[in-house]
């Protein structure tokens, strides 16, 4: 066991570090707050992405012809690890690059890959993912947006929801139902779509945080050329699964506050004449959060060790989002409660704001990219090998599946 880079890895890390030092600011101790809906953030994020692209860092693990440098998985992690130490704009390209990119790489034609992947990597064009619908969240294959073939094009009608970043995206990947007479999973087909197409209307959703990073997207007689179909007709679910696998990796850790913030806060916050950190219950909570945070960090190190040796990592990383989202919610709650009846008040104190934002934002994180419950099902079925639930919709044509009020 050791935590040292191999000589090649150390050399690569230094190359990353040197470039980052020349082109970005190291993070100071104050946490940056990113705002998805802020247009300036988009401009800054695009500029940063372009800078990285020109130097080969944008999608370094992609092949050269699409704008990468063909880096290995461990080199990708080393880059991400170094980049995370710098204050750079985040939250704009993750979905496009993390989910849409891989699916285009696997299913698009050579010509399309050459056309779309480099501008995606460069940050010139932003992509979003159009999966969830008002009646299809955890059961995303239950979606009902319709695609009807008309010669060499398809006509799309329906509504998507919870679409992150749709309001500033140029393209989207889309799964729709081409045949409601088939079973649920079999009647789906996958496309990519120009978000500027006539008939697409994007309406931001105001979330409980007050922000709007998600949208409703309405499709009214939207035309998509058949050439923009990804996979065969009826293969939509298979293609979607590729994307969802990547989504879990892309969502990953909860940003916001962690045990260090709770610890620092408890050292200075007064609790009946003593620092809160002297309180037994506070100490036990901090101990437990520290164990969870370390457990996730060390789990990542185990994953990296496997990649570093050229092995396939085990399923350990599947626990990340469940643990970190729940922890975020509890830590936010801890910070707010520590102010007793004044915890309700909005103030200028950035620490207090952070606890309140964590508490308000965490419920979304426990749902996005697979709810806590769906992720537990996935761990149980795919990691522990437990049998699937018997399903009321198995072997039934989609149109005959009970769907309740809608």
């Amino acid at each position, binding site marked *: *066991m*050791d*935590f*040292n*880079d191999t000589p090649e*890895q150390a050399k690569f890390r230094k190359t990353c570090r040197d470039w980052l030092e020349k082109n970005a600011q190291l993070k100071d101790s104050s946490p940056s707050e990113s705002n998805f809906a802020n247009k300036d953030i988009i401009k800054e994020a695009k500029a940063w992405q372009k800078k990285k692209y020109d130097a080969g860092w944008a999608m370094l693990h992609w092949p050269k012809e699409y704008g990468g440098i063909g880096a290995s998985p*461990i080199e990708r992690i080393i880059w991400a690890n170094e980049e995370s130490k710098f204050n750079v704009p985040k939250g704009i390209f993750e979905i496009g690059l993390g989910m849409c990119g891989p699916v285009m790489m696997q299913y698009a034609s050579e010509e399309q890959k050459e056309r779309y992947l480099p501008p995606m990597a460069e940050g010139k064009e932003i992509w979003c993912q159009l999966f969830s619908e008002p009646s299809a969240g955890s059961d995303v294959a239950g979606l009902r947006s319709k695609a009807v073939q008309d010669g060499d094009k398809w006509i799309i009608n329906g509504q998507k929801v919870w679409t992150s970043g749709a309001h500033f995206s140029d393209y989207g990947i889309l799964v729709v139902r081409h045949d409601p007479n088939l079973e649920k999973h079999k009647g789906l087909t996958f496309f990519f779509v120009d978000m500027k197409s006539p008939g697409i209307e994007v309406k931001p959703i105001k979330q409980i945080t007050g922000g709007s990073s998600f949208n409703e997207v309405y499709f009214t007689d939207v035309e998509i050329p058949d050439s923009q179909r990804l996979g065969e007709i009826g293969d939509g679910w298979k293609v979607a699964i590729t994307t969802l696998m990547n989504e879990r990796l892309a969502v990953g850790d909860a940003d916001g506050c962690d045990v*260090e913030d709770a*610890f*620092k806060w408890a050292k200075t916050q007064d609790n009946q004449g003593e620092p809160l*950190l002297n309180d037994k219950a506070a*100490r*036990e909570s*901090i*101990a*437990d959060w*520290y*164990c*969870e945070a*370390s*457990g*996730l*960090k*060390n*789990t990542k*190190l*185990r994953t*990296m*060790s*496997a990649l*570093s*040796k050229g092995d396939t990592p085990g399923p*350990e990383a599947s*626990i990340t989002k*469940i*643990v970190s989202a729940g922890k975020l919610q509890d830590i936010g709650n801890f910070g707010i409660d520590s102010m007793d009846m004044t915890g309700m008040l909005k103030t200028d104190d950035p620490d207090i704001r952070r606890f309140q934002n964590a508490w308000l934002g965490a419920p979304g994180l426990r749902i996005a990219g697979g709810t806590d*419950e769906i*992720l*537990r*099902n996935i*761990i*149980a*079925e795919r*990691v*522990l*090998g*437990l*049998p*699937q*639930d*018997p399903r009321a919709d198995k072997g039934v044509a989609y149109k005959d599946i009970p769907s309740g009020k809608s």
Partner: protein
Amino acid sequence: MNLDFSDDQKFLQEEARKFLEKENALSRNRSVLENNANVDVELWNKIVELGWTGIRIPEEYSGLGLGHLELCVIAEELGRFLAPVPFSSSVYLFTEAIINYANDDIKKEILPKLVSGEVIGTLAVAEDLQAPTAENITLQSDNNILNGKKIAVPDAEIATHAIVVAKTSSGISLQLVDLNAEGVKIEKQENIDESRGYFSILFENSPSKLIGDETGGWDLYEALMNQAAVLFGYEQIGGSQAALDMAINYSKERYAFGRQIGSFQAIKHKLADMYIALTLAKSNCYYAAWALSTNSADLPSASATARVSATKAYQLCSKENIQTHGGNGFTWEYDCHMFYRRSKLLSLNIGSLSNWREKLVTSLEQSNIN
């Protein structure tokens, strides 16, 4: 970056697993439990023959001269099979104390005999029904003569020697005692995991040898606990994994309402939570194993982190394994209760969960995380 065991260490672990499987360590545990035998002497002798008691003992004292990482992989397997042997008392506590703190004469006398099995050791600390502290130790050592009583000492009957935490005129010291010496009286104490024996030891003018110095014994004891927490942590994750495996298997075999119970989300989510707790504990144990093997300055926080998460994982996995088995899980016949008992024994043997949480936060205050 390599937070993983080496191929040699993995091979050693594989061999240990095969050995304990072949020896039916789990059914041996049941038979010790049912016959009030306190220990399986035959299994212990085989373990001594394999050289496991000498893993960390330097070659100059006839040991194997290997590191803590080798001990960790063995610990995980002993934990998985609930091996009813005094390995934790004799190896993680007693042997480590001798290696770390004893003078050369004592090392020459004791270490080769720990390898050969002539000496088996344990550690005697507690005196009352509460957590021992530097302040509440009353067993007296005057010029290496001991008077007083220790309770809840594991494995004292098969042990030939003990390290005793004793009060001197100037502080706390660690004393090495030959348990066959005069004035030593050992009595069985019934406990809630009878697959491992607990005993009281009464010392009346019993001769002892000083380990370390007359005053700094409590710090040595604490440092020993920081090491031992990692090794106990490995036994705990081994046991957690076994309990989770049992629950998985049962939930696939058992049918209710016309389907495997493992197809119900109530069971899936329970088992997923066990997996999550175990994965966190395992990753923390890996890091602590690294800290232990390199004597890192991080050891106090790393070992407390491993200990807290391993204790939580084993308690969760062992109790929810019973729950998954329903009424069968509550019977003596099913093995579930043996894991439940052992999880409690291991979680208390070197101090409770709440004590280790406190140690963790104290170590964070000292290292000032931010």
